[in-house]
């Protein structure tokens, strides 16, 4: 057949540049074998939820949690094994957790994010973006429809908050002035590039777009794919993670794919994060009834458990990982070297729902 599709040749040339770069930079990646279909993971989650919803099933869930958690966990979150403070959000609102285990409920906020030096917090509630201090005192508010994913960047004297509202990416100064819509955007947390300038990654139309907010110049537009659930930069701003459960890409500054993985046939990833001050990636992978925390490049297994790991977070000093494990109702702190594991139980009841970590920042 002699039929040629529109733009076949130009598309091929564009694709070849990316594919050639991937070929030239490839390293045999030892991702662990995937043994079961994502459906199995989904079925497990559904089964756990169904059990939890039925009062007679709660005792089953409790015994299941006991069976799947780490051995001899602390019965509550008495402390965090490393300096810094955690900002988390649950059904009850936003919480600040200090290293000594003390917790402060900041209010009924849906998403929250530290300011660059963790002196303030940007948070959202229904139709309002709010700036708070760390005691929960409101400094200013800005009414906008259904704001989500506030993300703060800048220096001590000049900061900006990016957020999503009404299907658009918006940016406002740290004092609540000069709010403006920047671009149409998907409901995915934008990510400021660390370092100089105000450069922001956001998602739109299944792509990640890197934008210089001051000049309006688009610096990078990735190929279209599934809408990412997370965008993140390495600490030096030279690598961009575009993450979805079935597709993971890491781009360099020129838009070349330096790491790719498509866990589509038998697994799904629940989270990924750069290790502080490196380009090393850590991934949480759900396969069948089991979840792993792995290093992205070498596939080195850091931690394994039954059920679903929802999230992984790095401590500010890069020595500890916090694995959020709702199936076991535990937070597990993992240190790779020297190896140490510290578990804390009954997390959901302490936060009014199993919380999501929004930030883990420097000690005040």
């Amino acid at each position, binding site marked *: 057949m002699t039929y040629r599709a*529109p733009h*076949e040749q130009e598309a091929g040339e564009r694709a070849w540049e990316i594919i050639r770069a991937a*070929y030239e930079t490839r390293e045999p990646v030892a991702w662990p074998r995937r043994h079961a279909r994502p459906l199995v993971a989904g079925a497990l989650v559904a089964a756990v939820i169904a059990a939890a919803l039925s009062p007679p099933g709660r005792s089953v869930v409790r015994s299941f949690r006991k069976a799947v958690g780490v051995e001899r966990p602390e019965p509550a979150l008495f402390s965090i094994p490393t300096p810094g403070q955690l900002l988390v959000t649950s059904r009850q609102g936003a919480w600040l957790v200090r290293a000594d285990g003390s917790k402060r409920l900041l209010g009924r906020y849906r998403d929250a994010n530290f300011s660059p030096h963790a002196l303030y917090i940007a948070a959202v509630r229904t139709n309002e973006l709010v700036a708070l201090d760390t005691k929960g005192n409101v400094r200013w508010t800005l009414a906008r429809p259904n704001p989500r994913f506030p993300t703060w960047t800048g220096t001590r004297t000049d900061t900006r908050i990016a957020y999503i509202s009404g299907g658009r990416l918006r940016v406002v100064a740290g004092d609540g002035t000069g709010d403006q819509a920047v671009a149409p955007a998907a409901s995915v947390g934008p990510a400021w590039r660390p370092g100089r300038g105000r450069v922001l990654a956001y998602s739109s139309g299944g792509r990640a777009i890197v934008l210089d907010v001051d000049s309006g110049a688009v610096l990078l537009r990735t190929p279209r794919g599934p809408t990412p659930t997370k965008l993140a930069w390495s600490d030096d701003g030279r690598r961009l993670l575009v993450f979805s459960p079935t597709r993971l890409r890491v781009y360099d500054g020129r838009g070349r794919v330096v790491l790719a993985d498509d866990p589509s046939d038998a697994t799904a990833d629940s989270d990924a994060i750069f290790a502080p001050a490196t380009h090393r990636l850590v991934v949480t992978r759900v396969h069948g009834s089991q979840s792993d925390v792995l290093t992205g490049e070498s596939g080195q297994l850091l931690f394994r458990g039954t059920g679903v790991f929802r999230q992984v977070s790095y401590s500010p000093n890069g020595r500890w990982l916090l694995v959020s494990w709702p199936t076991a109702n535990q937070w597990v702190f993992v240190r790779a070297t020297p190896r140490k594991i510290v578990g804390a139980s009954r997390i959901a009841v302490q936060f009014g729902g199993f919380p999501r970590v929004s930030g883990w920042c420097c000690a005040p």
Partner: protein
Amino acid sequence: MAGSGRDERAWVRRAQAGSASDFEALFRAHWGPAYRAAYLVVRDAAAAEDIAQEAFLAAVRALDRFDRRRPFGPWLHRIVVNRAIDWARARALRPEAEAVDVPAAEPPERDDELLRELDRLSPEHRAVIVLRYLLDYTPGEIAELLELPRGTVNSRLRRGLDNLKDRLR
């Protein structure tokens, strides 16, 4: 055109050993059919480009583990067509997603009546017709590629062709 089976095995072997020129030969031989297959299922040039590109990136990742005794084309086309069907289904479920800031689909350069009518078929019917009549797979091979019973493939082909025939009358 795709190379002969012997060429292809040699390209794969040398590409596995690190020969960029052989990997490029493999790419050049298969880009056209992969892109066309994706385009004919999704009817969106940008999506087809992404789907075919992603399939090749998957090929790069799996290259070292690829069994050279097996042909490369069917393996690649399986990824392409399955992703294209997924994409087309997703678009059918959420047509509003395209309205955000995605450019409109490019008008085909050869928008003849047959292609327009192909558009009216479901992604599943389109896929089997593309595999059969564009990529020249047998119904048995299509059944294996899409993991479908052979009878399902035959019935999709028959229904797809009947629909096209009715509309083109």
